[in-house]
């Protein structure tokens, strides 16, 4: 598959997963939930801009670069907040474990898709040196 198409394929899945999680909100309304919800929403919107961009000009430009940054850095920030939201929810028995497991699976799935998109992003961007400032270390291996 062409690199741009491959990126679009993975990002569409991430967008769908983000939608599923957002549809489930609110679960346990508090500051942390509000934060990761905002990040999910922002990530979804950034993906849409990338998808539009890939359709119009299937090559790296400033807009796609900026929004890939938002997607990857947002995903990392969102994971940190979600994981601690989950810990506090578990410690306090505020959310049932099935719900927490379901959310965890969806967040991990998003990360997995983003990791799988990385080789195509390297190819699309024209090399490692252009993308390592977008893609955090733990999405690159």
């Amino acid at each position, binding site marked *: 598959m062409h690199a741009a198409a491959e990126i679009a394929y993975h990002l569409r899945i991430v967008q769908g997963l983000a939608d599923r999680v957002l549809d489930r909100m609110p679960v346990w309304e508090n*500051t942390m939930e509000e*934060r990761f919800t*905002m990040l999910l929403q922002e990530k979804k919107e950034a993906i849409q801009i990338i998808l539009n961009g890939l359709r119009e000009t299937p090559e790296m430009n400033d807009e796609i*670069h900026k929004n890939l940054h938002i997607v990857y850095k947002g995903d990392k*920030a969102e994971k940190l907040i979600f994981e*601690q939201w989950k810990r506090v929810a578990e410690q306090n028995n505020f959310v049932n474990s099935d719900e927490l497991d379901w959310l965890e699976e969806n967040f991990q799935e998003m990360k997995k898709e983003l990791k799988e998109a990385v080789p195509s992003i390297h190819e699309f961007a024209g090399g490692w040196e252009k993308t390592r*400032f977008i893609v955090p*270390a733990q999405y690159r291996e």
Partner: protein
Amino acid sequence: MDHRKVLHEQFVADNETVDKWIHSTCNLCSVGCGTDIAVKDNKIIGIGGIDEHPINKGRLDPKAKYQWIPNNSKDRLLTPMIRNDQGDLEPASWEEAMDLIVRKAKEVLKDKGGDGVAIYSTGQGFLEDYYTIGKIGRAGMETHLLDANTRLCTATTEWCLIESFGSDGVPTSFDDVDEADTIMLFGHNMAETGTVLWDRILRRKKATGKPYLIVVDPRRTPTAKEADLHLDLNPGTNLALLNAIQNKIVNNEWIDHDFINNHTIQLDELKQEINKWTIAKASQITGLSEEKITLAAEKLGKTESLVTTTLQGVYQASDATTTCLAINNIHLMRGLIGKPGCGPLHMAGQPSSSGNRTVGGVGTYPGNRNPNNPKHIQDIAALWNVKEEDLEIGPNKGIIKQLELMEKGQIQFFWNIHTNPLVSLPNQERARKALEKPFVVVQDPFLTETTEVADVVLPPAMWGEKEGTMENADRTINVLRKAIEPPNGVKTDFEILVEFARRMEFKDRDGNPLIAYSTPEEAFEEWKKVSAGRPCDMTGMTYDRLEKENGLRWPCTADNPEGKTRLYENHFFNTEVDYCQNYGKDPYTSRPLSREEFEEMNPNGRAVFKVTRFGGPTEQPRADYPFWLNTGRLIWHWHTRTKTGRMPEMEKEAPEAFVEINADDARNLAIKDGEKVRIVSPRGNVEVPAKVGNIMNKGEVFVPFHYGNFDGEANANEMTMDEVDPLSHQPVLKHASCRLEKIGK
């Protein structure tokens, strides 16, 4: 030779005569007092404060007076130890220990790459050690997993300074507390955590009536008792208070329009957020009267000069970084920065945690360099003569995230240097289980709670037995000379790190050793080159000058050899896109901003008003856990008592943990002073005696965090939360919910 005639305070062992006094610096809190070490027959026998030292003028903290005692402790480790097949630590040679460490490090690097190895260091080491950790970690092991106990201490300082002003480095200095009309101590119990600086403020106040003191703290601490205005707000509401104060200052036009127009950006964005914050709303959330909040706003809005200090009451609370940003905002809207008696003085907790941040042993790249800026990575690659692509840019992971990576089996080699996480980390049960997973190296002069999970223990030299520099909380670099040789069998941290690099065969791109220096002074000289042209430029310093001048503040260059008392005197900030230390983060969601987004903001030398949206605590008191749990320090102890627990005078003052309870709460629960109480949080529980009184407000309790061991000593961190501030990743240790159960005598 005794090179000083008068020492303000001397504490020397009974019946001893001093052979010589050696120049040093106190190794406890972040004030950085100049000290001389008393030596006789290659043994430390006492300490004295240096009268000429501008920081302390001869004075010493109570703990500092005895800090040489642990050096002579009989239970010091004098040989490495390796855990045997039976699970016991047994003595080993340095050869055996280093061989095992290097073998394990190589195995993990081969298997997992840089993502598998982590170094967790300290805020009590030397700049030269931190610089070496940064170089070995980044260019040798190619990891981004460098963190330190500074994460529990001053990570928030770094982030709030980067966000507002473009780089780390407190804008003000201790000299400014001598000139300020008003000082606000926000979440900062200086009377117990920075006694010498506190003494300096109180002496002036008693002599002149100045400064007007505002203290923000839920507890009636010794600091609060001296306040002109004490704001004993509800836990977790710091930012609610500051948002209302910012709003009041703006609405009343107590702002410096010229300064704002010429030297800042984004006030309009901030106004949209703080417009919602009336005094009445803040009063409802903080529990403070409207009169008190109004008075605070008036004082802060009208004072001619203002220094605001912060410490763990901010950094370890919810909205930590945004609270500090609100304080920076107040200084910016009033134009009270970069001039005498003015500026935020975000403190550090430990004696050299600032130094670790500055040289890149933790946090961003050395010399306030931006890991997201390819030009800065190229700079470092050239300075270290390594390939740019070998420098992992991360981002770095804080210790709480590192615990997750241990749980998942990702981190398999964990090197713990001069810190005791199995007392100091939150949610101890989780921390213990996580640390049992990787191969753990602990570098500590004593067996600690953390050595219980160590595979190898390395015994390092202590204060007075090694040479190097430290950076205190106001950018002063002090040199510490070696007073005596370390005991036989012990090596300095620096020697251990250099030896590790040699055995790992870390090379530069020409095949020469990556670590080419062999003494701390040579390391400092190399570091100076790395600092050149950066905010923390130290090219004008030498060890000899640092001793002769009793410390120098950075930046210190050939053009400015005396160093800078305060930053931003020309009101030009470090926010140029290719100079700044980071592009910053969204202050609410914490998502890192891209270069493009930073360029769109276009600060270009102007400071940034950051929007300070209130979040508040996640876990709050409720029916089954009706109290707020607060934790913190005592004047008598330092961190986990590895050193102060070996000072009989300090142990006598505070031998065990306790819980402070409000008298009304105690009466309702039929708890008498001294009776044993079980405190239960959603994570764990401890049993401690009660101290009943009026220090705490109703519904709040306080437990000191210094205590805890595997033999049942009560550890407050069994109960604390492993939640972190989203920007600085500093754990929220200051509030959790809990309940009290009376046990009785």
